[in-house]
C-alpha cells in the first residue's frame, strides 16, 4: 500500500487549549480510515487541517511529496462532506451537485452527464429539480456525498456525516458509504465518535484522545491488542482491576490485585512496565467465564451475584469476588450458553468466575503515549 498523505508532528492550539498535539499519521491510498475519539479529542480539528479550514501551528502535511499546509482550501484536491451537509438552500439539488464543476467552468453538457451519473450513484436519480429543504436527512446526506464525489477528489473527508441520522438509517448509510468507497476506489477519511461505526466500516482506525494519537490499527487489532490504557478502555466495555506487577517475562505478566494474583499474557500495552509498578488489568465482560468452565481458567475466583441486567440481546450480571467485595465486575452471558451453574442464578447466589491470561491486558496506571 502506498502512502497518499502524511501528517508530521501536526499541532494546533486554540487560545490556551491544545487541540492537536504532535500527531504523526500516514494515510494509504484507497483505504477507508476512521479517526475515532470522544468529543473534544481533536479529531475534527485534524480533519479540518487536512481540508485546509484550519492552519496548523506546527508540523507538516505532506501530499504528493509536498507540504500543503499553506495551500488554501479551494486549491486542495480534497473534498469534504460536512456534519450539517452544508447544502446551499438557494440552489436546486442539481445545482448543488454541479457547483464545483461550474466553478471550474466545465461545459454544460458534461456537467449534466456527470451530475446525472453522480445522482445515480447515490441512488437519487431524478431528484435534480428539488430544493434541499424538500429532502429528508438521509437524502440530503447523499446529495452532499454526490456533490463532493463528482469532483473526483484524491481524498474524501467526512466530518461525522451520519451523526444526525436515526439508528436504522445510519446503519444503512454506513453500508452505502463503504460500498461507494469500494466502487470509486478513493481514500476516505471519516471522523466519528461512534465506536461501532468506526470499527464496522473502516480498514484502519486512528484513536485520538485529548489531541494525542493513541493507536492506529485495523479494527480487530485495536479491539484485541490495544496498545495503551485509553485505547483498551475506550473500545467495548471493560472491567478494570488495579494492582501491582509482581513478575514479568517474555510470556507472561503477573499482577497482585485485590482479587488475588492474576496472570496475563505479555502484550503491547505492557511495554515499559517493570516489577513493582502500579498497573491496571483490563478484561472484557464477554471474556469472563462463569460456572464450571471458570473453574479450569488460569485466573479463577469465587464470587457472588449482585444484580442481573437484561438488555434484550444479552444478559449481564454484576458480581463481586469474595476476596474483594468492594470491586464489582460485569460479565456477559449469551443465551446460547447453557452452563448449568450460570443460567438461572439468583441474586446473592455464589458463582465461580474466571478468565484466561489470553483474554486480558495489562496497562500502566497512567495514560500512555500511543504510536502511529
Amino acid at each position, binding site marked *: 500500500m502506498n502512502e497518499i498523505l502524511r501528517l508530521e508532528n501536526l499541532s494546533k492550539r*486554540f487560545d490556551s487549549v491544545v487541540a492537536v498535539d504532535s500527531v504523526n499519521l500516514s494515510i494509504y491510498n484507497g483505504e477507508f480510515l476512521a479517526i475515532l475519539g470522544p468529543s473534544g479529542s481533536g479529531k*475534527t*480539528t485534524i480533519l479540518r487541517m487536512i481540508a485546509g*479550514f484550519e*492552519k496548523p501551528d506546527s508540523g507538516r502535511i505532506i501530499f504528493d511529496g509536498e507540504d500543503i499546509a*499553506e495551500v488554501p482550501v479551494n486549491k486542495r484536491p480534497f473534498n469534504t462532506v460536512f456534519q450539517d451537509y452544508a447544502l446551499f438552500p438557494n440552489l436546486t439539488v442539481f445545482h448543488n451537485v454541479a457547483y464545483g464543476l461550474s466553478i471550474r467552468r466545465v461545459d454544460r453538457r458534461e456537467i449534466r452527464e456527470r451530475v446525472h451519473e453522480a445522482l445515480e450513484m447515490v441512488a437519487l436519480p431524478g431528484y435534480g429539480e428539488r430544493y434541499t429543504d424538500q429532502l429528508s436527512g438521509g437524502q440530503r446526506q447523499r446529495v452532499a456525498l454526490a456533490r463532493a464525489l463528482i469532483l473526483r477528489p484524491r481524498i474524501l473527508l467526512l466530518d461525522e456525516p451520519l451523526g444526525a441520522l436515526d439508528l436504522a438509517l445510519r446503519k444503512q448509510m454506513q453500508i452505502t458509504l463503504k460500498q461507494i468507497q469500494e466502487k470509486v476506489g478513493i481514500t476516505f477519511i471519516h471522523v466519528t465518535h461512534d465506536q461501532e461505526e468506526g470499527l464496522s466500516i473502516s480498514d484502519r482506525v486512528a484513536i485520538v484522545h485529548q489531541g494525542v494519537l493513541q493507536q492506529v490499527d485495523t479494527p480487530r487489532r485495536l479491539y484485541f491488542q490495544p496498545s495503551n490504557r485509553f485505547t483498551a478502555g475506550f473500545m467495548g466495555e471493560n472491567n478494570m482491576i488495579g494492582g501491582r506487577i509482581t513478575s514479568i517475562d517474555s510470556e507472561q505478566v503477573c499482577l497482585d490485585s485485590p482479587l488475588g494474583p492474576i496472570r496475563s499474557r505479555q502484550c503491547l500495552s505492557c511495554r515499559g512496565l517493570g516489577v513493582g509498578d502500579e498497573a491496571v488489568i483490563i478484561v472484557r465482560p464477554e471474556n469472563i467465564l462463569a460456572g464450571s468452565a471458570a473453574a479450569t481458567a488460569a485466573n479463577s475466583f469465587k464470587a457472588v451475584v449482585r444484580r442481573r441486567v437484561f438488555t434484550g440481546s444479552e444478559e449481564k450480571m454484576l458480581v463481586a469476588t469474595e476476596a474483594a467485595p468492594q470491586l464489582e465486575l460485569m460479565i456477559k452471558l449469551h443465551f446460547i450458553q447453557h452452563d448449568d451453574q450460570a443460567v438461572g442464578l439468583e441474586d446473592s447466589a455464589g458463582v465461580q468466575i474466571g478468565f484466561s491470561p489470553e483474554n486480558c491486558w495489562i496497562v500502566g496506571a497512567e495514560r500512555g503515549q500511543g504510536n502511529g
Partner: protein
Amino acid sequence: MARKTPAGGARRAEMLSLLAPTSAWLVVFTVIPILMFVVYSFWTVRNQMIFRELSVSNYVRFFTNPMYPALLLRSLIIAFGVTVTTLVFSYPLALKISRSRGRLKSVLYMLIFIPLMTSYIVRIYTMRLVLGSNGVLNNFLLFLGVIQEPLQILLFNRFAIFLTLCVILSPFMVMPIYTSLERIPRSYIEAAQDLGSTELQIFWRVIFPNARPGLIAGCMFIFVLSLGDFMTPILVGGKQGTTLSKVIQVNFGFAYDWPLGAALSVVLLSISMVVILVSNLFGALREV
C-alpha cells in the same frame, strides 16, 4: 470551534481590497468631518471672518457667560424629564405588545413602527396643531367647559417642548424595550411560575432584570436625541423655550458664529458620547 480563518498571503490582498475603499469613505466623510468639527471649535470669529488660530476663547465664553451653562442645564433637565416620562409610559406598552399574541400583536407592533417611519417634522407639526391656543386641545377643553379661556401655557414654552418630545420620541423607547422583552425565553417565566412566584415577583425578578439592556438603550436614545433636537424648540418652544441646541443652530444661521456653534456642539457631543459609552457598559448597544 469555527474560527475566522486568519488573513495571510493572497487573502490579505483580498481583505485590503474591501478595507481600503470603505475605510477611505469612512475617513473622508465621517472621521475627518468630526475632527474638523472639533478643530473648528478652537477657532474664532472676528469682523465676520473666521480667524484660524487656535484659541480656547469659545470654551471660555461658554463657562463665563452664565447664559450658556444655564441653557445647557435647561436642555439636560428637559432631556432627563423626557427620558423618565417616556419610560413610564413606554414600558407598559412594550409589555403589552410582548404579552399579546397573533393578530393583536402584529397590529400593535405596526402601530409603534409607523411613527418611527413617519417624518419627524410632520409629527412635531401635529403636536403644534393640538396644543395651540387656537388648537384642538384648547377648543376641546373650552367646549367641555373645563376652562373659560384658552390655556396659553400649552404652547410656545418649555412645557410644550417637553410634551412634544415625549410623544415624538416614545417609539424610540418602546422598540428597544420590546426587543429586549422578546428575547427573554418563555421558559424563564414558566420556571418562575412553576416555583410559585406571583405576577409581581415574576416581573421584578425575571422580566425586568433581563430587559434591562433594552431599557438602557431606550433611555440612551431618548436622552441623546432630546439633547440634540432643535426643531422642536424652534417650532413649539417660542421665545421662552430656547435650548442649547437651538442656540447652536442659530449660530450656524444668521448669528454666523460657526466656531462658537461648533464649541457648543462639542460640549453637547461630549455629553452625548459619555451617555452612549456609559450605556454601552450596560449592554445597551446590543439592543440597538
